[in-house]
């Protein structure tokens, strides 16, 4: 791989992993939703994300140039080789926990893909344009539910606030940048994450205000995903996800 392809590969992997791991979590809602309609809505979010992961993995495989498939990339790596943000692997918890995760992530992704759409890399730009449409919907879904739960019953308000507070510490690393970011940024390929933070924060504050919820306190921010250091949850996700691929390495499904 040339240097630039190596960098793009890392970037594509990161974006693919975010979508792939979050889709795995959302898919766990299937047959567990609070009402049948919402069950199907959560599944739709998951399906959008699986499609997105596929796009970024395919590109990663191409950049790597070793003849791997999207599935090789999705299924045949170890815990330390995944680069999704920690928030994506957080358990679904109750419905408020899932909605808080969706809110933080989808608002971030909205601003992120709005920028990536202008990437000088055509594939990133095209994938971002497609993703942006989906993310707008995800964001509306999450914001509407945040408001309903925040301004619903006393119980739902409490649960929603707790969920927001608990996940807050995983939002910091969404904006964390390393060499991959800075070098690709210099070439107009990647997004300046530091620019997104104030927009993201304002957007979240606006939603929380309408939802009669308080902005979580600035506490310690946990990071690690850029180095492939995860929470304990990821290993369990992979154990499930990779079971067949690992148990029958020669099989095609």
């Amino acid at each position: 791989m040339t240097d630039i392809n190596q960098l793009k590969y890392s970037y594509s992997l990161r974006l693919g992993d975010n979508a792939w791991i979050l889709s795995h979590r959302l898919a766990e809602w299937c047959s567990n939703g609070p009402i049948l309609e919402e069950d199907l809505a959560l599944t739709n979010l998951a399906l959008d994300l699986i499609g997105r992961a596929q796009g970024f993995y395919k590109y990663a495989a191409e950049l790597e140039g070793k003849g791997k498939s999207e599935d090789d990339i999705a299924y045949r790596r170890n815990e330390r080789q995944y680069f999704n943000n920690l928030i994506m692997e957080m358990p679904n918890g109750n419905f408020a926990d899932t909605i808080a995760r969706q809110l933080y992530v989808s608002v971030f992704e909205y601003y992120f893909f709005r920028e990536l759409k202008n990437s000088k890399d055509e594939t990133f730009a095209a994938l971002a344009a497609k993703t942006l449409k989906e993310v707008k919907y995800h964001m509306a879904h999450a914001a509407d539910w945040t408001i309903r739960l925040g301004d619903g019953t006393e119980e739902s308000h409490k649960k929603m606030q707790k969920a927001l507070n608990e996940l807050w510490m995983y939002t910091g690393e969404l904006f964390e940048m390393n060499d991959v970011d800075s070098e690709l940024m210099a070439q107009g390929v990647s997004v300046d994450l530091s620019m997104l933070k104030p927009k993201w924060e304002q957007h979240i504050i606006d939603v929380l205000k309408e939802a009669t919820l308080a902005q979580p306190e600035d506490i310690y921010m946990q990071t690690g995903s850029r180095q492939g250091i995860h929470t304990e949850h990821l290993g369990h996700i992979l154990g499930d996800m990779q079971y067949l691929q690992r148990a029958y390495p020669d099989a095609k499904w």
Partner: protein
Amino acid sequence: MATDSQLDLWEVFIQGRNGSHHTHAGSVHASDKKMALQNARDIYTRRGEGSSIWVVPAVAISASNPEDAEAFFDPADDKVYRHPTFYQMPEGAKQI
């Protein structure tokens, strides 16, 4: 605990593409109109069936009574003069 609520019933109308009518597709449950629209979107347009959605609270729909069907609809049966085929055109007239 309060008795269970499966939320309110809404009727869903989908327009397949611009220019066509909105037609009844089915129903969804939802507590407010945003939710009703999103649910309708997630349930009735998963295969690209729609370009526009209307949702209407089921309680807001008035329907004609089948008992009145004769009085309502039979009187239209003999008004053949409303249809173009009722009229005899002189031979040879064109584009009419």
